[in-house]
């Protein structure tokens, strides 16, 4: 192609004048391209910011996360115990530094309102390994390790800036940290962490191990099966990740063979190591890549639609192009003219797209933050411009080569003798091909969005075995400061008594965990029961454990299938009793009445968490409550009475026949009158808690539904445009057919049939594409 800049500049001026005479077409093309390019630029910015942007941790490519999993019992992350950490740290040489982190909850008093905070209990090397810096004060270091060290606390940047309004005077303040029945410690605030991705948990504070009495106990230090800690490491200078993985597997295998009773065969325990950035972004990777694919489809649809418009325009300009060709313009020259026009259109579309991408990035970032917190601190940079420019170039070149150019070699020569619009077979095929491409891509988006919508509707319509609408759940975490265990129970009993007296209250109870929200309390214990015989090689089943007050099942309207609820006679000095879920009854006592039979804990971890293997008499059977999944599944749950097995979590449940939220203030005042430092937080109905859990699925349906509707609109306009153009070119044919006796209804049916056939062909192509894409997804996952 003859590409002298001066000539091309001239072509651009001519193209601009030509487009000014076809303003409608130009605006349509620019807007369509802006949509396709803008969506892609925004989503690329999101993908780059969440998946590809380096972490703020220095030398982050050497930073790894080490995980222990037990796929045999469905546990993706079992964490590590202190003896396991010591074995790994002493045995693995390809990791030069180790840092540990345990997620725990504290009630924190002394920094504004008393509150329950998520905290990380960290070792002195944690921040060195993570290579993070403070913005205020200092971070926890090796000098803060050991049972005699003073308690110290570091605030996360998010907590410090949002809850404490970046108060610079926070350093040196002392807070009281309560660990429920385990006891209370104090800690001095020594620093504020720089903004960084919270991992492995989104905590408000980090504290040294001495602030958690449980972490200093013998059970934590010596118990190999008491696993609470997560492990990070830095690769040694010459070590590769593959070498480290191999060495970890060897050390782990040796550890298991030396302690066989602590690693059950059924669990199939394994160890793995991943770069921290991959670990952090793994939750968002799939959704972002699917979003990228969806925006790619929108781009294909937009370009196909524009290609049809350009093709139609070139057919109408055939006369002009033919005259120029007859006067000596080469194919290259004519093609350069078309390229100039498409560059102008695509450039304008890209500019508008990039400008509109900024607000799109802000909206999409809020959506993506549900899957990865990295999306919240996204910055729009020049990469968006490059993406826009790149896509514009691709579209411009494609569109320049779409129209067929007149040539002397064709059967009608330059076609100068033809009067009206004349569509050749080749042009017709291209028009239909582009329309079918739009239909195929729209079908993929529509099918995907429909599947997400169906999943969402299934989840919304699934009803749990409790009354979620009229139950208010409030976090009233256990505050043991200055209280004996019996005083803690008395506090909750008195709370229940007083709240029951409020107007509109039907029933009140206390439990460990709010369904669907307190998933951190979802641990399972092995157990056995009267007459239960294990099969060869079978292990004792595992069940969820919940501690509840009398009246819990009545408050949540959970049906009692057999027997009774707990009552005031089920006290510490009486016979241990339990209530079981229906699934436990069916599993342990099939075909037999479970009432008055016994079950007992057999899990080796119970000695570390203050539980006894004493047989407990079954006094009641209740319907299953799946408080982990939105679509309920059969769930093994054993309930202990609060008086016999102390509360771990501290959650108040209030069933009311009036507005649940109207009770929040009186409940808060009532509890504060009993204990001024008691944290009272997160009051919400169980229905709202459930709806909150469904929010990511709802957002997915909204976003992909939006993509699908836009794609559908463009594709429908594309089909209509192709048919309208075809009809206008066939006016003479229709006139002749009508003149010789054809019925208008036959012409109408013929055109509609054309449109339907085009759509059906596009849908078939889309279906083939969808099945191929599904196979790729299966292989990938």
């Amino acid at each position, binding site marked *: 192609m003859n590409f002298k800049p001066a000539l091309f500049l001239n072509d651009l001026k001519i193209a601009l004048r030509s487009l000014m005479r076809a303003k409608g077409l130009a605006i349509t093309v620019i807007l369509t391209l802006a949509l396709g390019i803008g969506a892609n630029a925004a989503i690329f910015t999101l993908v780059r910011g969440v998946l590809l942007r380096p972490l703020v941790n220095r030398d982050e490519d050497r930073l790894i996360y080490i995980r222990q999993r037990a796929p045999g019992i469905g546990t993706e992350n079992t964490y590590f115990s202190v003896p396991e950490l010591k074995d790994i740290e002493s045995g693995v040489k390809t990791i030069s530094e180790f840092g540990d982190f345990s997620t725990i909850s504290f009630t924190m008093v002394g920094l504004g309102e008393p509150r329950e905070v998520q905290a990380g209990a960290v070792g002195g090397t944690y921040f060195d390994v993570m290579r993070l810096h403070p913005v205020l004060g200092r971070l926890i270091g090796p000098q803060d390790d050991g049972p005699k060290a003073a308690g110290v606390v570091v605030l996360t940047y998010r907590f410090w800036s949002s809850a404490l309004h970046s108060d610079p005077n926070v350093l040196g303040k002392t807070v009281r940290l309560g660990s429920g029945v385990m006891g209370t410690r104090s800690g001095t605030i020594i620093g504020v962490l720089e903004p960084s991705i919270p991992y492995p948990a989104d905590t408000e504070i980090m504290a040294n191990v001495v602030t958690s009495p449980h972490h200093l106990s013998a059970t934590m230090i010596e118990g190999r099966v008491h696993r609470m800690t997560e492990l990070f490491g830095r690769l040694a200078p010459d070590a590769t990740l593959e070498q480290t993985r191999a060495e970890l597997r060897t050390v782990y295998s040796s550890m298991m063979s030396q302690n066989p009773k602590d690693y059950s065969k059924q669990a199939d325990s394994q160890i793995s190591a991943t770069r921290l950035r991959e670990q952090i972004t793994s939750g968002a990777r799939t959704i972002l890549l699917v979003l990228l694919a969806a925006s790619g489809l929108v781009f294909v649809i937009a370009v196909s639609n524009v290609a049809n418009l350009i093709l139609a325009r070139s057919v109408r300009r055939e006369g002009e192009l033919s005259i120029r060709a007859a006067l000596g313009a080469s194919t290259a020259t004519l093609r350069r003219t078309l390229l100039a026009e498409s560059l102008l259109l695509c450039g304008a579309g890209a500019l508008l797209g990039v400008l509109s991408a900024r607000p799109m990035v802000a909206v999409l970032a809020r959506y993506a933050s549900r899957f990865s917190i990295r999306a919240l601190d996204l910055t729009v940079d020049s990469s968006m411009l490059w993406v826009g420019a790149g896509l514009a170039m691709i579209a411009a070149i494609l569109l320049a080569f779409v129209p067929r150019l007149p040539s002397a070699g064709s059967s009608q020569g330059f076609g100068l003798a033809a009067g009206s619009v004349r569509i050749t077979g080749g042009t017709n095929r291209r028009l239909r091909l582009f329309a079918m491409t739009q239909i195929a891509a729209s079908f993929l988006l529509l099918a995907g969005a429909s599947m997400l919508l169906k999943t969402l509707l299934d989840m919304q319509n699934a009803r749990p075995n409790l009354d979620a609408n009229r139950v208010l759940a409030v976090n009233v975490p256990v505050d043991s400061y200055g209280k004996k265990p019996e005083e803690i129970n008395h506090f909750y009993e008195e709370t229940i008594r007083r709240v029951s007296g409020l107007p509109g209250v039907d029933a009140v109870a206390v439990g460990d965990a709010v369904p669907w929200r307190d998933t951190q309390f979802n641990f399972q214990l092995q157990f056995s029961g009267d007459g239960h015989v294990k099969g060869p090689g079978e292990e004792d089943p595992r069940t969820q454990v919940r501690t509840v007050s009398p009246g819990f099942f009545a408050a949540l309207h959970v049906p009692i299938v057999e027997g009774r609820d707990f009552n005031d006679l089920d006290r510490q000095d009486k016979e241990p009793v339990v209530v079981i879920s229906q699934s436990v009854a069916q599993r342990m006592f099939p075909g037999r009445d479970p009432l008055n039979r016994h079950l007992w804990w057999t899990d080796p971890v119970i000695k570390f968490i203050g539980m006894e293997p004493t047989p407990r008499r079954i006094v009641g059977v209740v319907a299953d409550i799946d408080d982990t999944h939105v679509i309920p599944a059969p769930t093994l749950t054993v309930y202990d009475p609060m008086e016999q097995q102390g509360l771990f979590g501290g959650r108040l449940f209030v069933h009311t026949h009036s507005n649940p939220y109207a009770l929040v203030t009186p409940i808060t005042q009532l509890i504060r009158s009993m204990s001024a430092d008691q944290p009272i937080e997160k009051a919400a109905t169980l229905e709202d808690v459930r709806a909150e859990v469904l929010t990511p699925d709802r957002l997915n349906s909204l976003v992909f539904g939006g993509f699908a509707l836009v794609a559908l609109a463009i594709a429908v306009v594309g089909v209509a445009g192709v048919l309208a153009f075809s009809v206008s070119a066939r006016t003479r044919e229709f006139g002749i057919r009508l003149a010789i006796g054809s019925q208008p209804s036959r012409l109408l049916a013929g055109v509609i049939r054309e449109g339907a056939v*085009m759509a059906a062909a596009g849908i078939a192509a889309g279906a083939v594409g969808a099945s191929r894409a599904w196979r790729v997804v299966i292989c990938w996952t």
Partner: protein
Amino acid sequence: MKMPSPLPVVASAFILLLAAVAASALPAARAARVDVIQALRAE
């Protein structure tokens, strides 16, 4: 991962087909209303 339900896929195909047929209605109506004399005279 299990195979997704066919209902959303079938429903999507149906919606698209319906939309394409609806989009074809306007050009089809124009074709049926062509003025015979005008069409032949234009040649």
